[in-house]
């Protein structure tokens, strides 16, 4: 009897633990939903800060980026496909920056799943990544994003009223700068 009682007592605790534990895996964010609430540090580098349209220091949330669409790439310096795709993602960044119609509308950021600041810096340097990359050393953001495999791309539309929706998600299979951008522009209604 006592055995049963102790076991029963444990159940609510277990449920509570699984729901609130920061270690419990979350679901993968899907199209039409909002992003998991995560804070990123405002970049110290003035160019990156300017690119994202942020000011001051402290932290920010992705929908605060000054853009109509933000493309988030979850990557890892340890991931061969992320390495292989890096030059193509850079090409997409350049394509956006070179187009006066898109330049201030579409912004890119990368989040290094399980990567320390040093590891992110190695990736950034190796591939001369021109857009801001953020470390996620303890997989906290990666967990919030449902532990997706890398590279994982998320397109987020930011509305005039400050709300946002996910308009595109994609695991790997980066189809090249132009076709990917096409998909994003269509999904965002910018085309």
């Amino acid at each position, binding site marked *: 009897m006592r055995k049963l009682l102790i076991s029963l007592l444990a159940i609510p605790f277990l449920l509570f633990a699984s729901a609130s534990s920061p270690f419990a895996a979350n679901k993968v964010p899907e199209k039409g939903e909002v992003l998991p609430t995560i804070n990123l540090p405002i970049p110290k580098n003035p160019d990156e800060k300017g690119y994202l349209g942020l000011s001051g220091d402290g932290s920010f949330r992705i929908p605060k980026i000054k853009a109509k669409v933000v493309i988030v790439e979850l990557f890892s310096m340890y991931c061969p496909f992320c390495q292989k795709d890096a030059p193509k993602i850079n090409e997409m960044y350049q394509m956006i920056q070179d187009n006066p119609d898109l330049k201030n509308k579409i912004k890119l950021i990368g989040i290094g799943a399980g990567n320390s600041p040093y590891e992110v810096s190695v990736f950034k340097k190796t591939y001369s990544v021109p857009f801001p990359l953020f470390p996620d050393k303890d*997989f906290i953001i990666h967990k919030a994003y449902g532990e997706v495999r890398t590279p994982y791309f998320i397109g987020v539309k930011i509305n005039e009223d400050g709300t946002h929706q996910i308009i595109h998600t994609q695991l790997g299979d980066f189809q090249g700068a132009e076709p990917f951008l096409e998909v994003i522009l269509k999904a965002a209604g910018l085309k």
Partner: protein
Amino acid sequence: MQKKKLAHLFLILGVLSVFFLNPMAYGLSDAFKENIYQMGTLKPIDSVLKVKVGDRAPDFALSAVSGEKVSLSQYRGKKSVVLSFVPAAWTPVCSDQWPGYNIAKDIFDENNAILLGITVDNLPTLFAWTNQMGKLWFPVLSDFWPHGAVAKKYGVLRSNGVSERALFVIDKKGTIRYIDVHDINKRPPLEDLVNALEKLK
């Protein structure tokens, strides 16, 4: 009664651990697709080191995936050597460790060091597995037969026959200068290894 209570406590802790010690999503590169064998969370370390910092590193000669035979002593007087033992091909953390070193060649070069990757897998397995990583700049060595002999010499062979996730930094004179027998479930941060290499200068 007391014993029973204790048993219950363990049961509850055991169940709870499923929630708290959930292995992180390593092996998270899509490059390996569904080919990664999930191991769950393993005992962090399951061997006893037989060498220590300051010791002469035990010499060995192993076959590399490229076909050549590589010995530790061939680098003596020429380069520092980093030995990276990883437990097994096609497992989560290991599959996500060497590809990172693969883009850090300049860091090894700056420190006049060579990296030797070692597992207890046989050559064909290592060939297929490392092919998924792209072209690796460092030799990958098979410590398959006699099984895990080199891992055993260093004291990093686990009781189930795979090696630990361990890093050894050996200077040009052949002396061990840094050892990190890492929690097998986690990837060692690159900066710790780089700091160890920079201390050799």
